[in-house]
């Protein structure tokens, strides 16, 4: 009796149409997001020194493809392999030189859930790609943010930016304020001015330390941009 009853009652359970639509939509978005991330990463990597090696590689590959119908295809293939290896060495050498010069570049990183599923994305190590200065205006701190690579990902894709995590430190190095801000401001020509609330502080010199910005783009998940920026201001 229990078995029949169980079957009847469970068969009556139906999933709402809006839930079905939501799941399909989310799956498609997740698929597109992955493609976009891949494209953005490729875009950034394309700007690096490796770019040269890839171009040379493709040129060599194309040359090889044109000749595959001839009897000397094998010979060209060997030459192409050697050329690709040389180009790759040169490219990697370029990257090493860049790293050696102390120039750090930002990179995209996945945010993973407890089971390893990717649920978001952050942009890490952006310290040297953003310049920050702070001034006091009335009862707020105006943070002027300049994106040094405004034409590149992820900055080129962002519509607005806000200060996600910051702290204010006094002259003795004591942290007086640790805060987050939900306020975002629109980007114009790679520059954005964000306002942070200024709590009751005594006159003196302070340091504003920002560890995370958050960027927004239309129809896209917010992108945390992480780094370490310090600017001074006086009251």
């Amino acid at each position, binding site marked *: 009796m229990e078995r029949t009853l*169980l079957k009847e009652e*469970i068969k009556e*359970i139906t*999933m709402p149409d809006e839930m*079905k639509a939501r799941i399909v939509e989310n799956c498609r978005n997740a698929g597109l997001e992955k493609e976009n991330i891949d494209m953005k990463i490729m875009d950034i990597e394309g700007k690096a020194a490796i770019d040269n090696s890839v171009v040379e590689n493709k040129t060599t590959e194309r040359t090889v493809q044109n000749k595959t119908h001839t009897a000397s295809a094998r010979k060209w293939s060997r030459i192409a392999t050697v050329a690709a290896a040389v180009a790759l060495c040169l490219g990697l050498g370029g990257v090493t030189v860049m790293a050696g010069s102390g120039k750090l570049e930002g990179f995209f990183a996945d945010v993973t859930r407890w089971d390893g*599923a990717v649920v978001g994305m952050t942009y890490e190590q952006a310290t040297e790609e953003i310049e920050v200065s702070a001034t006091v205006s009335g009862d707020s701190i105006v943070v002027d943010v300049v994106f040094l690579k405004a034409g590149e990902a992820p900055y080129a894709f962002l519509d607005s930016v806000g200060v996600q995590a910051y702290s204010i430190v006094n002259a003795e190095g004591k942290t007086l304020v640790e805060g987050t801000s939900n306020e975002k401001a629109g980007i114009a020509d790679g520059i954005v001015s964000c306002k942070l609330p200024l709590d009751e502080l005594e006159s003196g010199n302070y340091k504003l330390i920002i560890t995370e910005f958050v960027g927004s783009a239309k129809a896209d998940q917010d992108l945390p941009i992480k780094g370490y920026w310090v600017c001074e201001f006086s009251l």
Partner: protein
Amino acid sequence: MKETLARPADDLEWVMETYGNMLFRLCLVMLGNSADAEDALQETMLKYYRKAPAFTSEEHRKAWLLTVAGNQCKDLLRFRAKHPLAEDTDIYEYKSSDGENSGILEALMTLPEKFRLVLILHYVEEYPVKDIAKMVGKTPSAVKMRLQKGRKLLKEVYRKEYM
């Protein structure tokens, strides 16, 4: 050469229409609340979208989906064991008819998940023991034991609490 069915990217809506209710039922009964069921189902569909194998038949596709959904539910249950939610079950909200509740679903929800899974696969989805064994990664005799114990427990709880 074996003929393969349509690739996942082309038929998400179709799969949701065809198997959505079946998978939702399984996830809801396994997890007890619709929010977790939706999460598990979404993860299942994402896996289907991203890395489903080339299916050789419709039965193959259905079994693959049920297996993945069952595993997702187990993962989520493990997570919930460490991070419990104070949510009551809302399983009755998703019944299509407004008939009186017999209490059988509530009785089922009191059973451990390993019994719930095999009971649903066998008595609701009507899978034979050997197929269930493949899906849950156990031997057919282990599945038979689970069915037997599950039936017994369900009967006891239902007759004691709801009759």
